[in-house]
């Protein structure tokens, strides 16, 4: 019932998220999940966006892609790294998962 797969997690600023999603689709990711988040890393604290901030678009977003093929995850990660993360904040990691209905991923 469960089949091994990979989940790639990408954390990035809102206004390059569209570019990241386009990369996912162009690299044969079959879908993705978007989670609004806050957090802190090397840069300043981002609130969880409930509170008004005058400047729009600097919120963070977590993007998760589940894929049966590790190679797909690696290609996406490489492209995101070279095309989006050069100048922008962001974090990326991979997890092992076991999926139901593998035909969907």
């Amino acid at each position, binding site marked *: 019932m469960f089949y091994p797969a990979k989940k790639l997690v990408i954390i990035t*600023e809102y*206004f*390059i998220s569209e570019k990241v999603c386009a990369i996912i689709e162009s690299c044969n990711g079959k879908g993705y999940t978007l989670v609004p988040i806050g957090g802190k890393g090397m*840069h*300043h604290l981002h609130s969880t*966006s*409930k*509170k*008004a*901030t*005058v*400047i*729009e*678009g*600097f919120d963070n977003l977590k993007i998760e892609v589940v894929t049966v093929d590790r190679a797909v995850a690696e290609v996406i990660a490489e492209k995101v790294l070279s095309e989006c993360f*050069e*100048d*922008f904040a962001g974090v990326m990691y991979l997890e092992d998962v076991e999926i139901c209905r593998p035909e969907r991923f």
Partner: protein
Amino acid sequence: MELIFDFLRQFASQLQSPTLSFLIGGALLAAFGSKLTIPSPIYQFVVFVLLMKIGMKGGVEIRGAELSEMLLPAAISVVLGLLIVFLGHFIFSRLPGINSADGTATAGLFGAVSASTLAAAIVMLEEQSMNFEAWMPALYPFMDIPALILAIVLASIQREKNKGGERKKVHAWAIVKESLRSSALSAMILGLFLGLFARPETVLASFYEPLFRGLLSVLMLVLGMEAWTRIKELKDVAHWFAVYAFFGPIVHGLIAFGLGYLAHLWVGFSPGGVVLLSVIAASNSDISGPPTIRAGIPWANPSSYIGASTSVGTPVAIAICIPLFVALAQVVFDL
């Protein structure tokens, strides 16, 4: 002398106006660590209503107006936007310890226009019963967009020079589109169109106008809280940004006042119009500018330009420049 006196009187009385006192109140709240927050959806809606009202009101009133009058002020606005960015770019590139991209990005924001400062200025002029041309708010994009484009172009040229290598083209048209699509500008333009081509008078009178001042007070509170909160960010970058952010608005506004005065002599541009033009020039983009700059000059450090703009530039534009130019106009135009 009298000017200084007038300004101080004006300034003291403005400090008690709802606009300024809420701005200061917001900063005090943040300074005392209050947990009071204005929720993000409320803030977005407040900006929407304010800009729709400004747009609609302008649209309704310019229906019969002679739009050719707008030509000279619009040209002046473009010139101002470009001039401010060149000036800032030049200054920052001569200051020690400044990453040139950070400086140019900051100059871009200060050349661009703040919707909130515009709204505050309109209310303060109304309180002073100082009239202005109905199409004044429509000058916003004429100053805003050229400034943002120029900043991105200058930063890109600079980068090429430094890095050598691959030339990265600036897509000016894409920036224009992105600016026009930003929530602030598109609300104002939508309002303008509705005012021009539809009959929104009933809804303007029953909803958008009565709520205007109250919602502006809420916006000022948010600006005040944000100004204080982001001072930390400003502390981490070179102090020149704070200095530029303090004097820039005043200087930019004075240049605009001078050009506006010429337009007054040539084509009868109204005193209220001159003040509003000066405030627009003094203001720096807070809502739509930062994302455009972030996308266009991603190698610049957001803390420098956002800190300079929200923590110093905007409070100076609202709390100092508006009363200053009102007082100046009262002296110069002998009102």
